[in-house]
């Protein structure tokens, strides 16, 4: 592990700000294109009202199962976007703009299992937020699941 990290030392650890903006660009792509077919379905299940109290009570009394399935599907598609692109290209469109790349600490090439593990928290934004807090605590700016998958994001 130490030898692997030393090999990567010439590569700059990715700046958290660049990672954040790259993430936002990718999230925009996911929301505008990939999740676009689910938009009409989501609208069907979100009541058309400007009153927050009515909105909350409508959601609370409505088809929770349907909303849960839509939320789960959204999470899975978001996760797959990052997992597949990280595995195939070691970068995403947002990463390309900010010159960010995903590297494996164990092997020359990134394995699919590593890509799945490092991106699993992208199923849910709150989970990703908790995962990202670890960037502040690690020396090489890794999220928790990046550490667990033995991968790193570099510039």
């Amino acid at each position, binding site marked *: 592990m130490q030898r692997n990290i030393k090999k990567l030392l010439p590569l700059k650890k990715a700046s958290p700000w660049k990672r954040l903006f790259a993430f936002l660009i990718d999230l925009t*792509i996911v929301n505008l*294109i*990939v*999740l*676009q*077919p*689910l938009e*009409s*379905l989501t609208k*069907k*299940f*979100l*009541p*058309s*009202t400007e*009153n927050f109290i*009515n909105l909350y009570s*409508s*959601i609370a*009394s*409505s*088809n929770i*199962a*349907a909303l849960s*399935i*839509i939320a789960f*599907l959204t999470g899975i*598609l978001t996760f*797959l*976007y990052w997992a*597949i*692109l990280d595995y*195939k*290209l070691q970068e*995403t*469109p947002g990463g*390309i703009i900010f010159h960010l790349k995903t590297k494996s600490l164990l092997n020359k090439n990134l394995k699919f299992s590593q890509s799945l593990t490092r991106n699993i928290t992208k199923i849910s934004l709150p989970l990703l937020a908790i995962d990202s807090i670890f960037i502040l605590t690690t020396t090489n700016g890794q999220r928790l699941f990046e550490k667990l998958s033995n991968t790193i994001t570099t510039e």
Partner: protein
Amino acid sequence: MSRLKTIILVIVILWIIAFIASKLLGTFIPERIVTDGIAVIPIHGEISIEGSSITPFIAQGASSTRIVEDIKKANENSGIKAIILDINSPGGAVVASREITTAVKNSNKPVIALIREVGASGAYWIASASDKVVADELSITGSVGVIASYIEFAKFFERYDLKYQRLVAGELKDIASPFKELTPQERILFQKKLDLIQEIFIDDVSKNRNLSPEQITEIKRGNFYLGREALDLNLVDSLGNKETAINLAKELAGIKDGSIVEYKEKKSIFDLFRDTFSSLFYYMGRGIGTELKTVNLQPELDIAAR
């Protein structure tokens, strides 16, 4: 594969998965969440139990099974405050029309019937059960009667030496068969049935609309009326259009703004093919008919005569 191609491919594949999933989910979970909703349920075409036609290639009519189910769903949805029946139908089967009428009467929400081009016979029966009926000035409505006419082929068969072999157990089993003459006794029996159906029909409509004895006598003739005439006969409550019906619905439901929820009939891929073929066959027939009319057969007949 280049980087750009890979990115585009991944995005496209994920989009397709999202598209298929949304269609599947939409099929299984059709109910939209609304707060102050007004359900619009279409009753278009000839009314029958299944809304089916003779062949799979002719467009479907209004299915009482589907409409009763839609009314039930609207009643169970706490977000729906009123129901509008969007009627454009010449009527149809007796039992099917009655099923819908009963569902309308048992509805726990205000129901407004909007008669578009036509809302006659069975379709008017359904409208009469609503809390309010709105029609255009020129809509066709009324026709409170029963019809069972048919073409009798008995003489036609005689002319071409065809014979109807009557094999029945039960003297009246083949009553009103088009292949034999209707006997006077059979006519009287059949007419009694039609009169009974009309009696029930008129009775229900007159109760629904609080008709006077004079008005009942008038509509008993089975005449159809334009919207304006129907208003004078108390068969409709107001003249107007969809906007009028929506405003009435809001008034009866006591809501200020209402979101419209269209209860459209779900069409399968087969239904789309059927509707396409229906139009196609119609125009093919029309085209062939026009061709036959314009082709001058006289020269061939002259040659044959010589």
